[in-house]
């Protein structure tokens, strides 16, 4: 579109959700339908604007200045990818919220405002061109999402508290890094930062990168900084969990990508650090943290009894894949990591929305109470099934291609232990994914859910859109690879060869052509179905006409294996659960409290004389500093 310059377009994209949020808040006071309408209009407007921004790479769009450093926006294909995720998911979540959040249970005036503000903040993060803009929008995102989390009920207050405290600590780490950089460079635009890092001492560079990484990893929930995630994601209300788990976490991954490849380019990392398995040491440590994240989170997810906590632990595991892919400094690995970020947003959003629908209809999310809902909620079942196949990484859905790319990249670099951990995490995903679908939808239907119907249309539309997107990206990954390969070329990686349906030989150590797999599967399925239908017909029996060694199964009997589904596996991995990071943090908190209590009583003695002497001492020191400051240093 030539009549709107890219300049204005970017500023409009960042501003639209904020304006929409404010209008929704004001309009909601008048009547709630106005609020819904404004929310839908503005979120879909953002999607439309994102599409207009396709295929544009430009930097340095000036919008202000602060402390002598310019504030700029920029865009490149990777930004476009994340912008697509942000605006698309937000639009779908707004649709779902309209159906799910009910008016009489809680005051919803500011819910839509915060939802749109979070969207705006995330758009600002990915469009940021310098660190101050990044940080401003990062903080806006943190506290608006905190307000969203605490809509969930009583337990969500504690969960939100833990979330905001850890986010703030991470943000302080980032702030220290920014202060160090500002001291050296006096400007925080990405290009200037990259120049400064290229010409400073290795220890300075490593310090800056580590501090930034700590701040980003708190948000991206890489172990050991992940303890806020299970509580926050499971206690948040149903439409907010997909936003948190699908999109917010990716901001940490995007930040890591920018830090590693816009500031500290790959060549630089190789020069200042020794290499292990042809990877710079810092990147290797990040990969190991991600690998541990994958395996341990999978083990924890297998043992869960609560549907949303299971999905939250699974998010930790999948974001481990993304970070693992990004920290592999080869084009195939980075492309795989970014593609997995896109896929994870889609299928995790789908899963959380499906579980949210079940909670909406049945009121519980405890897996041992549900069961047999496939007869009553078939559409939700199909949506959950598509999400599950994608999460497990099985063809023909999209999780398979991105995981394949990450595995191939690791194999090319001969980092075999990480590859083993990634594989083990993926096989473990079969386990908890099956637990989810079995305990909710298969099995015996308890009597109290006899009258459950499926969710209304407005809540089904987001699930359909996400399911179709998953299938499209699974069969034709070339569509997403277009954007991703252009993006990684922009940051200096070599492009990788790909076709619409897969990867030809030579890119990786093997070749892949998904369309063959999918078409043969369809043909084999139809063939065996025809074979099945050739013989005598089946008749349907009720779920109570079941094998129980002769005993008649009645509705009062709980004939469902729902609690402790993987108890035998739990016995195998029990030694791992003896230590947990949460206990370490609690010890640290208790130690600080004891330390603080001891010294607090010493300082705030309540004695007026002591306070007077404090004032005298501080005034003397301040006067001395002002009068003698110039002479002493």
């Amino acid at each position, binding site marked *: 579109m030539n009549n709107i310059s890219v300049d204005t377009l970017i500023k409009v994209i960042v501003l639209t959700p904020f304006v929409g949020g404010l209008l929704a808040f004001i309009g909601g006071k008048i009547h709630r339908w106005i609020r819904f309408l404004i929310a839908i209009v503005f979120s879909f407007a953002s999607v439309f604007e994102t599409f207009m921004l396709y295929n544009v790479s430009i930097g340095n769009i000036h919008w202000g200045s602060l402390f002598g450093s310019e504030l700029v926006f920029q865009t490149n294909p990777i930004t476009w990818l994340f912008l697509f995720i942000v605006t698309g998911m937000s639009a779908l979540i707004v649709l779902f919220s309209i159906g799910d959040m009910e008016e009489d249970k809680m005051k919803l005036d500011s819910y839509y405002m915060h939802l749109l503000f979070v969207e705006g903040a995330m758009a600002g993060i990915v469009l940021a061109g310098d660190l101050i803009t990044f940080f401003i929008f990062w903080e806006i995102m943190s506290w608006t999402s905190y307000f969203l989390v605490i809509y969930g009920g009583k337990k969500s207050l504690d969960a939100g508290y833990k979330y905001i405290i850890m986010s703030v600590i991470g943000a302080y780490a980032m702030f220290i890094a920014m202060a160090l950089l500002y001291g050296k460079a006096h400007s925080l635009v990405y290009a200037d930062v990259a120049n400064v890092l290229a010409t400073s001492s290795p220890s300075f560079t490593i310090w800056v990168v580590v501090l930034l990484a700590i701040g980003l990893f708190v948000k991206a929930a890489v172990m050991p900084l992940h303890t806020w995630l299970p509580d926050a994601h499971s206690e948040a209300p149903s439409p907010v969990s997909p936003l948190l788990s699908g999109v917010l976490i990716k901001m940490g991954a995007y930040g890591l990508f920018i830090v590693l490849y816009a500031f500290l380019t790959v060549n630089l990392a190789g020069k200042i650090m020794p290499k292990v398995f042809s990877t710079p040491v810092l990147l290797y440590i990040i990969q190991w943290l991600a690998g541990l994240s994958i395996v341990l989170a999978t083990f924890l997810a297998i043992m869960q009894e609560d549907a949303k906590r299971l999905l939250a632990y699974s998010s930790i595991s999948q974001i481990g894949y993304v970070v693992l892919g990004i920290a592999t400094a080869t084009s195939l690995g980075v492309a795989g990591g970014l593609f997995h970020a896109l896929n994870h947003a889609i299928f995790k959003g789908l899963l959380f929305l499906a579980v949210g629908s079940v909670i909406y209809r049945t009121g519980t999310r405890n897996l041992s109470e549900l069961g047999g809902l496939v007869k009553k909620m078939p559409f939700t079942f199909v949506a959950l099934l598509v999400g599950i196949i994608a999460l497990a990484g099985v063809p023909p859905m999209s999780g398979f291609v991105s995981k394949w790319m990450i595995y191939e990249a690791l194999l090319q670099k001969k980092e075999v232990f990480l590859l083993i951990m990634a594989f083990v995490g993926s096989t473990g995903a079969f386990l908890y994914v099956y637990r989810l679908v079995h305990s909710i939808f298969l099995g015996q239907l308890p009597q109290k859910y006899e009258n459950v119907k499926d969710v209304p249309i407005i809540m089904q539309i987001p699930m359909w859109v996400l399911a179709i997107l998953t299938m499209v990206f699974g069969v034709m990954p070339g569509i997403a690879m277009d954007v991703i390969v252009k993006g990684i070329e922009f940051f200096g990686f070599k492009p990788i060869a790909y076709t619409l349906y897969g990867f030809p030989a030579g890119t990786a150590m093997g070749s892949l052509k998904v369309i063959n797999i999918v078409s043969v599967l369809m043909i084999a399925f139809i063939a065996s179905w025809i074979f099945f239908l050739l013989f005598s017909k089946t008749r349907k029996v009720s779920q109570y*006409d079941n*094998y129980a*060694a*002769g*005993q*008649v199964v009645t509705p009062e009997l709980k004939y469902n294996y729902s609690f402790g589904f993987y108890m035998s596996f739990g016995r195998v991995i029990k030694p791992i659960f003896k230590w947990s990071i949460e206990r370490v943090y609690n010890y640290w908190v208790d130690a600080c409290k004891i330390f603080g209590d001891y010294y607090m009583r010493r300082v705030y003695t309540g004695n007026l004389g002591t306070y007077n002497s404090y004032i005298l001492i501080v005034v003397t020191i301040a006067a001395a500093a002002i009068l003698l400051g110039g002479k002493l240093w």
Partner: protein
Amino acid sequence: MEKMTEEQVRTIANMLRKRSLWMIHYCTGCGAMELPPTMTSRYDMERFGMSPYVTPRQCDILLVTGYLNVKTLRRLITVYEQMLDPKYVIGFGSCTLNGGVYWDSYAVIKRLDRYIPVDVYIAGCMPRPEAVMSAFKHLMELIDSGKANGYKLYKKNLAYYKENQRKVLG
């Protein structure tokens, strides 16, 4: 491809069924003691294609081994109705014929035939494995000639069977 008539299909089906009968491993009473010798190496039953399976959904023959209480009869009828057609019942031991050693007990069913249709009876208070195998052979001959249709009788005379069951079970 020539079209096969009903007769030919049924002949082939009967031939298949008699060659691979699966019995349910459901030990009702003390007569079940004679099943392990029949199954194991000495009087090998598996050479006729018969083998024990676990659930009523998977098998063809219900072996009612021994005496039947009223309590067990209730479970047995559930198991019988859960089996898939075509199914055959073999009454094992004298207790299913006329009560056996429990002929004047108040708690034991005297004639099994009133409650489930039975195809073959085996007499004896524990029949030896040779008798069991000759009964199986007799059942196979019945299947071949098309006379082993206890399951069809059950469906036809359902009212009669249900009436008897209700009288006993309450």
